[in-house]
């Protein structure tokens, strides 16, 4: 059949693990385009937006969030079996997200620091990207993802071609938009040279250094950039702090963070915590955080 109109619509699922829901929301942010996309895609599972549910199979499954609990670790394996194409959406699903900062801390200690009864909390010792658990067919990056890249992905799936998503540094986006370099002109530390673009050089355009939310581009050399920051005379620059953001658990950024002493606020194991006692060091009113 030559006509695409007669093709059955592709079955799409949108599910989440540990996340803020912002990447799913980007799908709704396609707004009126969403109504047009519905001509080509049947969204069969999207509990945030619809009470109609389906267990699969899915032609495309968009997965938001990092794998953070034993139940999620089991569920992602099941979901993979139901998905013809599994696409991670966002920094949590692709790199572990901001919650992966806890991976540097002792799990029992961090549970005890946040919850009054840590023994009730079911979570894994680490928050990890989906790709550490199952095979992933494509990743959309960003915290949150870009609506343009999401649209490109869906269109490419609909017509059966590879998505065309650039892998280049934020620096190139700055050049293309004639944004004056914030490092050169103002001495602001910027992760642009090692970070994948997709945001359109958002932070430099707003007078800030890039904080790496799209994660490391391929072939990046963040270790070199880290040493450059460390060697410079910029007062108060702490290299690990700069990389310890939303894609900190990506292997290249993780290496730099480790080289420069780990992220801020790491909580090591303490004997009193593993005894299961209430938060031992802080005031009772605030201890339950």
């Amino acid at each position: 059949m030559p006509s695409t109109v007669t093709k059955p619509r592709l079955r799409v699922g949108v599910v989440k693990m540990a996340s803020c829901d912002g990447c799913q929301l980007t799908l709704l942010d396609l707004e009126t385009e969403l109504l047009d996309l519905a001509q080509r895609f049947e969204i069969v599972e999207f509990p945030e937006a619809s009470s109609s549910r389906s267990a699969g199979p899915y032609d495309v499954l968009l997965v938001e969030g990092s794998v953070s609990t034993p139940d999620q670790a089991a569920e992602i394996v099941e979901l993979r079996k139901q998905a013809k194409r599994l696409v991670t959406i966002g920094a949590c699903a692709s790199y572990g997200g901001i919650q992966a900062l806890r991976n540097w801390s002792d799990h029992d200690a961090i549970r005890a620091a946040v919850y009054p009864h840590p023994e009730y909390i079911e979570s894994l010792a680490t928050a990890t990207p989906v790709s550490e658990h199952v095979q992933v067919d494509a990743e959309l990056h960003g915290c949150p993802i870009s609506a343009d890249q999401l649209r490109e992905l869906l269109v490419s799936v609909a017509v059966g071609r590879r998505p065309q998503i650039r892998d280049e540094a934020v620096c190139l986006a700055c050049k293309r938009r004639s944004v004056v370099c914030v490092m050169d002109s103002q001495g602001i530390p910027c992760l642009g040279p090692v970070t994948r673009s997709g945001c359109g050089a958002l932070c430099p355009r707003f007078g800030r250094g890039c904080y790496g939310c799209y994660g490391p581009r391929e072939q990046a050399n963040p270790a070199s950039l880290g040493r450059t920051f460390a060697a410079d005379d910029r007062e108060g620059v702490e290299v690990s702090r700069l990389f310890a953001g939303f894609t900190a658990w990506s292997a290249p950024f993780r290496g730099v963070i480790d080289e420069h002493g780990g992220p801020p606020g790491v909580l090591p194991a303490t004997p009193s915590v593993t005894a299961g006692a209430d938060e031992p060091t802080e005031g009772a009113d605030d201890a339950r955080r």
Partner: protein
Amino acid sequence: MHGDDGGTLVVDAPGGEREFKVGYLTRVEGEGTLSLKVRGTDVVEARLKIFEAPRYFERLVVGRTGDEVIDIVARICGICPVAYQMSAVHGFEDLYGIEIDPAVRALRRLLYCGEWIQSHALHIYLLHAPDFLGYPSALAMAADHREIVEQGLAIKRVGNQLISTLGGRPVHPISVRVGGFSRVPRRADLDAVRQALDAAVDQAAATVRIVATWDPPELVHEQPLVAMRHPTEYPYNDGRIVSTDGLDLAPGAWGDAFEEHHIEGTNALHARTHDGRVYLLGPTARIALSSDTLHPMAREALEATGLRDEIRVNIHRSIVARAVELLHACAEARDLIDGYRPPSRPKVDFTPRAGVAAWSTDAPRGLLHHRYEVDERGHVAHAQIVPPTSQNQGAIEADLAAFAPSVLDLPHAEATHRLEMLIRAYDPCISCATHFLDLRIAEAGAEEGFG
């Protein structure tokens, strides 16, 4: 779990006990379950349970600066990131004694208007309206009511456009900094969104008229209400914490009246007043406590509905309160842009100091309190974040218990649907609430978790 039919199941327990259960609440932000147990016509237990995974935010911000906190806490919620940025930035500015430029203050309100517009439009049209019109989703509803869905999407787009203009992108904007903004717009940058707001104001006014005609399930249940209140402004960034019980507190003094409890048998921390009472936040509370500061257009629209008293006692009418606030946010955003003169500097310098950075703002879903203990370098030593949904849990469960007897005679599936609809009326934001919620759902059974 994912792929569940959202479904309902009957548990016939000994002694004629019936259970109504929704294993995965849909059209809410985040992952939760609803369970209600009744014996005869008595409600034995009403529970909103959360199985959203914990992310430990209060610990993730330890060791970080105020500016880093602003970036990090935004990620608690993809729908209301600005609210988290606002409560945090005001807390740090209060501690550091920073006087912000009046134009910067106006821009903060404008940014918050953007969030209210997109969040309220999302909830009214995409999440809540299908309950009134009888569809599983807005996409399904669009087949028969395309003009309504398109109107909602159009209003929502203007909210996103506002946030993007001021903060670079609609979700997790990047410009808010301690002391101001990393960049402020020129007047011309606001032209496009100013133009779009004319239509949005009209559409929001139409929204109030439409949703006021949608008949809600009956409920008369008065709860104590808490909101921010400012003498001349509808509550966003500033004001005092007030209640229907006569409370009046500084925005950083939430802990003087409220605390979190471990309720026996629930495993979830709930907020209560010090004397153990539940309370309700959000549009219902703000309309009751602050309708005199609504934009005149919104105030008139509210009066025209004749529903002010009913909003107070029937949470299903929150859609009307939300629509009135949607109109307020659109109209105020337009006024703010018309009065805008760029500040002389986008951001003022400051010196960190040790102490407590605490503030509350009114997020789309209600009062959001932050409290950070900060050391002399400006690094957080300890954090407390109290989201609106976590505070509303007690009120939600109280309403469930009050509402349930009216649906017990309906077919089970319909009764369960009505109960889920009640939960949605609060616009619960479970991702927000979760980082402080205890997650054990032990006795309730394995079907509630993933997998």
